C-alpha cells in the first residue's frame, strides 16, 4: 500500500514540477519583450512590469492551468462513466455544445464573461451531453455513444464556425476563440470560475471510490451495492460542468480531455495502486494542465510576439493531442480489440430491400426538381421547361444556369461520400470508419487548400488532383500507423480522429496565415459549400463515381464476405487483400473528389451508410445503392434549404448537412434500437 501510494505520488510530483517550470517559462512569453529578468524583478517587489504580469501573463497562465485541470479530470471521469476509452469532452459533444451556445449568444449581442458565460456554456454542453447519453443509453460501452457524440460534435462545430464567419463584422475576434485561445482580460474570469473547477474536481474525488467499483462493470457495481444511477448523474454533471467551465474560459481547446486521460490511463496501469480514481483523476488533471501550458509555450516559442496571436492555442493542442493519440493508439491495451459491425442496424427495419430503394430514388428525384425551383428566386416548373427548351427569359436562364451545377455538385458529392463511407466500413469491419473521421476528407481538404493557396487560378481538375493526393496521403498514413490487420479496431478510429483533427488544424492555420480576410475560402474548406460551383467542378467526382460503380458492380459479393471476418472469404476463395485494397482505393478517390467539388462536408459519409444498413441490412447489392441515394438526398436537401431559408443570404451546405442530418440520425438510431 505504501509503495503504491509512493508510485502515484512520485508521478504527481514529477508532473507538478514540470508544470511549474513550464508555467514560469510561459509567464516570460508575450507580446511585449518583458521576460525573465522583469519577472524575477517583480517577484522581488519591483513594480516596473507589474501591470502586464498581473493583468496579462498571470491570468493567461492561470487560465491555461485551470482549463487543463478541468479538461483532464473531466475526460478521465467521462471515460469511466461510459466505460469507453474514447469518451471525452470532445467526443461526447460537450465542447461543441458549450462553444455553440457561447458563439450564438455573442452573435445575438449577448456577451456574458465569467459566471454568465460559464452558465451558458454549461447549458449548451449539458444539453449536448444529455442528447448523446440519451441516444446511446444502456449501450455506453459500445461505439454507439462515441458515434453519436462525434457526429453531434461535428454538427455543432460547423454551426459555430459558420455563425462566426457569416457575422464577420461583429465577430472577428470570435474566430480565434472558436478554436480555443488563452488570452485573458485580467484575472476576473478565471477567479470567478476557479471555484467551479475546484468543486467539480472535489465532487469527482468524493465519487472516486464508487467510480473504482463502476470501472469493474455496471453489474459488479450494482452487486456491491453502489447506486449506479445516482453515481452516473453525479459524475456526468460534475464532468460536464468542468468541461463547460473550460470552454467559458478559453473556448473549446481541442483534444486535451481525450489525450491527457488516455496517457494517464496507460501510465497508471504500470504503477501499482495508481489506477484508483482518487489518484488517477488528479494525475489526469495535472497532465491536462501540462498539455495546455506546454502547447502554448511551444506556440509562443516558435512564433514570438504578436505572431502567436494569429494561431489559436487550440490548433496546437489539437496537433500535440493528435500525435499523443496516434502513439498511444499503438500501445494502448484494448485498442486493438475489434468492435462488432452490428452496433447499429444488425437487423434491418424492412425485409424488402426494393421498397426503401424505390422510395429513396423517388424522393431524390422529386428533391432534385424541387431544388431547381427553390432558392432566393422561387421558380415554377414552366420556367424550368422554358430553360430546358432554351427560351427562358434572362433572369430565369441565369438563375438556373447557376443553380443547376450546384444541384449536380451537391448530389454527386453526397453520393460519393456515402459510397466512400460504405466501402470503408466494409473493409475495416468498423462501424465508426468513415472518410471524415479517418482524416481522408480532411487530408483532401488540406491538399485542395494548399494548391489554391500556391496557384490561385487552379482549375477544377488541379484542385481534384491535389485533393486526391492529400486524401490518399492521409489515408495511407492512417493505414500504416494502424496496421493492415487491425483495421477493425479502436486503433483505427483513434488514429483517424487524430488525423482528422490534425488536418483540420493545419487547414485553418493555412487559411488564417495566408488569406485571413477571405471568409468564403474559410467556409468552403472548414465547413463545405456549393456556392459558385460549375459543372467543371463536379466533373471529377462524376468520373470517380462512374469508375467506382464499375468496381462495385464487380465486387459487391466479395464485399459482403469481406465484412464478415478474415477467414470466411479466404475459405470461399475470395482474394481478400485485393478486394480490400481496391475498395479502399475507390473510397479515397470518391471522398477526395467529393471534397474537391464542395469542400469538407462532414456527416454524410457517416450517416448515409449507417441509415442504409439500418434499413436494408448489410448486403452490398442493396446497401450501396441505398446509401448512395440517401447521401445524395441528404446533401441536396441541406444545400437547397441553405439556399432558400434565409435568402438572399445563404447558409453553406456544410452547416446544413449537420443541421438536417442530426434529427435524421437520431431518428434512425431510435428506429434501430426499437426494432432490436
Amino acid at each position, binding site marked *: 500500500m505504501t509503495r503504491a501510494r509512493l508510485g502515484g505520488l512520485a508521478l504527481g510530483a514529477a508532473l507538478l514540477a514540470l508544470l511549474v517550470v513550464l508555467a514560469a517559462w510561459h509567464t516570460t512569453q508575450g*507580446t*511585449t519583450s518583458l521576460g525573465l529578468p522583469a519577472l524575477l524583478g517583480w517577484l522581488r517587489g519591483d513594480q516596473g512590469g507589474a*501591470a502586464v504580469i498581473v*493583468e*496579462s*501573463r498571470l491570468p493567461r497562465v492561470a487560465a491555461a492551468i485551470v482549463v487543463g485541470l478541468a479538461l483532464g479530470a473531466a475526460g478521465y471521469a467521462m471515460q469511466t462513466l461510459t466505460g469507453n476509452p474514447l469518451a471525452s469532452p470532445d467526443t461526447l459533444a460537450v465542447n461543441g455544445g458549450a462553444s455553440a451556445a457561447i458563439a450564438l449568444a*455573442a452573435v445575438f449581442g449577448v*456577451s456574458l*464573461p*465569467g459566471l454568465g*458565460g460559464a452558465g451558458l456554456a454549461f447549458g449548451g454542453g449539458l444539453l449536448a451531453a444529455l442528447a448523446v447519453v440519451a441516444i446511446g443509453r444502456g449501450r455506453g460501452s459500445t461505439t454507439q455513444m462515441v458515434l453519436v457524440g462525434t457526429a453531434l460534435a461535428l454538427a455543432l462545430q460547423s454551426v459555430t464556425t459558420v455563425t462566426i*464567419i*457569416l457575422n*464577420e463584422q461583429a*465577430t*472577428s*475576434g*470570435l474566430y480565434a476563440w472558436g478554436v480555443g485561445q488563452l*488570452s*485573458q*482580460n*485580467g484575472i476576473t474570469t478565471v477567479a470567478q470560475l476557479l471555484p467551479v473547477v475546484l468543486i467539480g474536481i472535489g465532487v469527482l474525488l468524493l465519487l472516486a471510490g464508487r467510480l473504482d467499483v463502476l470501472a469493474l462493470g455496471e453489474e459488479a457495481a450494482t452487486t456491491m451495492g453502489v447506486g449506479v444511477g445516482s453515481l452516473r448523474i453525479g459524475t456526468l454533471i460534475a464532468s460536464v460542468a468542468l468541461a463547460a467551465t473550460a470552454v467559458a474560459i478559453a*473556448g473549446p481547446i481541442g483534444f486535451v480531455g481525450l489525450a491527457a486521460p488516455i496517457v494517464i490511463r496507460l501510465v497508471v496501469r504500470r504503477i501499482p495502486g495508481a489506477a484508483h480514481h482518487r489518484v488517477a483523476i488528479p494525475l489526469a488533471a495535472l497532465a491536462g494542465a501540462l498539455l495546455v501550458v506546454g502547447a502554448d509555450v511551444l506556440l509562443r516559442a516558435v512564433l514570438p510576439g*504578436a505572431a502567436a*496571436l494569429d494561431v489559436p492555442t487550440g490548433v496546437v493542442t489539437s496537433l500535440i493531442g493528435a500525435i499523443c493519440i496516434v502513439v498511444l493508439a499503438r500501445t494502448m491495451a484494448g485498442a486493438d480489440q475489434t468492435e462488432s459491425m452490428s452496433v447499429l442496424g444488425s437487423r434491418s427495419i424492412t425485409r*424488402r430491400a426494393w*421498397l426503401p430503394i424505390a*422510395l429513396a430514388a*423517388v424522393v431524390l428525384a*422529386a428533391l432534385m426538381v424541387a431544388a431547381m*425551383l427553390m432558392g*432566393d*428566386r*422561387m*421558380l415554377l*416548373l*414552366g*420556367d424550368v421547361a422554358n430553360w430546358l427548351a432554351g*427560351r427562358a*427569359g*434572362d*433572369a*430565369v436562364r*441565369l*438563375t438556373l*444556369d*447557376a*443553380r443547376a451545377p450546384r444541384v449536380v455538385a451537391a448530389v454527386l458529392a453526397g453520393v460519393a461520400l456515402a459510397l466512400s463511407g460504405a466501402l470503408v466500413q466494409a473493409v475495416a469491419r468498423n462501424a465508426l470508419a468513415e472518410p471524415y473521421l479517418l482524416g481522408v476528407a480532411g487530408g483532401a481538404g488540406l491538399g485542395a487548400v494548399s494548391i489554391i493557396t500556391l496557384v*490561385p487560378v487552379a482549375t477544377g481538375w488541379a484542385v481534384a488532383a491535389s485533393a486526391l493526393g492529400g486524401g490518399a496521403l492521409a489515408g495511407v498514413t492512417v493505414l500504416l500507423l494502424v496496421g493492415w490487420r487491425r483495421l477493425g479496431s479502436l486503433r483505427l478510429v483513434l488514429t483517424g480522429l487524430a488525423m482528422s483533427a490534425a488536418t483540420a488544424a493545419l487547414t485553418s492555420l493555412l487559411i488564417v496565415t495566408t*488569406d485571413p480576410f477571405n*471568409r*468564403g475560402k474559410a*467556409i468552403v474548406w472548414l465547413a463545405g459549400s456549393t456556392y*459558385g460551383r*460549375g459543372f467543371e467542378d463536379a466533373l471529377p467526382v462524376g468520373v470517380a463515381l462512374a469508375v467506382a460503380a464499375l468496381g462495385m458492380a464487380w465486387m459487391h459479393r466479395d464485399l459482403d464476405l469481406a465484412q464478415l471476418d478474415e477467414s470466411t472469404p479466404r475459405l470461399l476463395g475470395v482474394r481478400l487483400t485485393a478486394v480490400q485494397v481496391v475498395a479502399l482505393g475507390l473510397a479515397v478517390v470518391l471522398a477526395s473528389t467529393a471534397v474537391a467539388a464542395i469542400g469538407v462536408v462532414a456527416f454524410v459519409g457517416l450517416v448515409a451508410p449507417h441509415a442504409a444498413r439500418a434499413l436494408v441490412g448489410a448486403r452490398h447489392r442493396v446497401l450501396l445503392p441505398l446509401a448512395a441515394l440517401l447521401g445524395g438526398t441528404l446533401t441536396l436537401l441541406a444545400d437547397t434549404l441553405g439556399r432558400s431559408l434565409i*435568402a*438572399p*443570404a*445563404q447558409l453553406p451546405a456544410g452547416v446544413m448537412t449537420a443541421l438536417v442530418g442530426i434529427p435524421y440520425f437520431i431518428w434512425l438510431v431510435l428506429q434501430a434500437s426499437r*426494432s432490436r
Partner: protein
Amino acid sequence: MVTTPPHRRPLLVGAAVIAALALAACGTTEAPVESTEPDAAGESVTVTDARGQEVEIPAGVSDVVALEWNVVEHLQTVGIDPVGVADVAGYTDWAGTGAPLQGEPTDVGTRVEPSIDAIAGLAPDLIVATAGRDEGAYADLEAIAPVIVVEGANASAPLETMYADLRLVAEATGGEEAAEAAIVAFQEHLAELSATVEDRGLAGTALAQMDGWDAGGQISIRPYAEGALLPAAFEAIGFTNGWPGEGDAQYGLGSTDVEGLTVLGDDTHIIYSTVGDDDVFRNQLTDNAIWNELPSVRAGSVHRLPDGIWLFGGVETLTAYLDALVATLAPTP
C-alpha cells in the same frame, strides 16, 4: 414478429403529394423569349481591372451591383446609385454615416456569398467586386453582366490604390469627370485639414487607430499598421502613425492583445470606432490595469469616432473620418 405494414399506402400518399406539388408548381415566373436577338452593337468601353483582365462594358451603364462596401461608395461618388448592394443593413451600420446609401438598393445577400439569383433578377449592366472575395462566383456573375474587380487595398500604396479603384469604377461607368473632381476636392480638403492641424499645433501627433473585439471575455485588438488606409489618410494631414507593428500585405492590419498596447508611445492618441454599445474600450477594459496604466489612457487620449464611418472606404468616407478626427482632437473653441 412485426406485422407487415401496408406498403402501398405511403407510396400512394407520396405520389399524390408529389402530383399535387407538381401541379401547384406549374406555370412560369417570367415570360419566355421568342428569340434571343443579338445585342445592338452600341458603343462600349474596355477597362483592365485588378485581375489584369480586359473587360468590355457597354457604354452608359446605369444598373450596377456592388458586392463590397468600398465599391458602393466609389459608384456613388461617380454618380451611380447601385441597384444591388451586398448586406444593406451592415452597410447602413458600418458605412452609412461617412457615405450614406443613395436610393433604395436591393439587398443581394452577404458579402461572403452574394445571391446569384438576386443579382440575375436585377439584370444589371455591370457588377463590381473587390479582390480577395467571391472568386468562386466570378463565372456565374460574368454570365449575368460584365464583372470588374477592384483591388480594394494594397498596403504598399494605400491611398493610391483607393484612387485607382475609384478611377477604374469611373472608367467603367463613364464617370471620369466626377471621379477626378472628387479626388481633387479630396486633396484640396487634405490641404485645408493640414493647415488646420498645423494651426492647432497638432502636427506630428501620433495616432493609433485600432479595432477591439470581445469574444467570450477575451479581448483582441486589431491595430492599423503602416500601409493601412486610415493611417495613410491621417499622415497626409500631418499626423503620424503611433502603431509601430507590422500589418498584412493587403489591408495593413496587425493583431495584438491588451499587453501589446504597452508599446505605444506616451503621447499617442488611441482612435477607434465601432457600432452601438459594442465598445470593448469603454465596457470591457475599464477594469484592466494594463489599459488603465497606459499613458494614453491616463492622459485621456482615447477617442471614439462617430459610428458608421467605414474603415476601408473611399474619398467621402475618408473626408468624414478626417473631419471627425480633427474635430475630436482639436475641437473648435
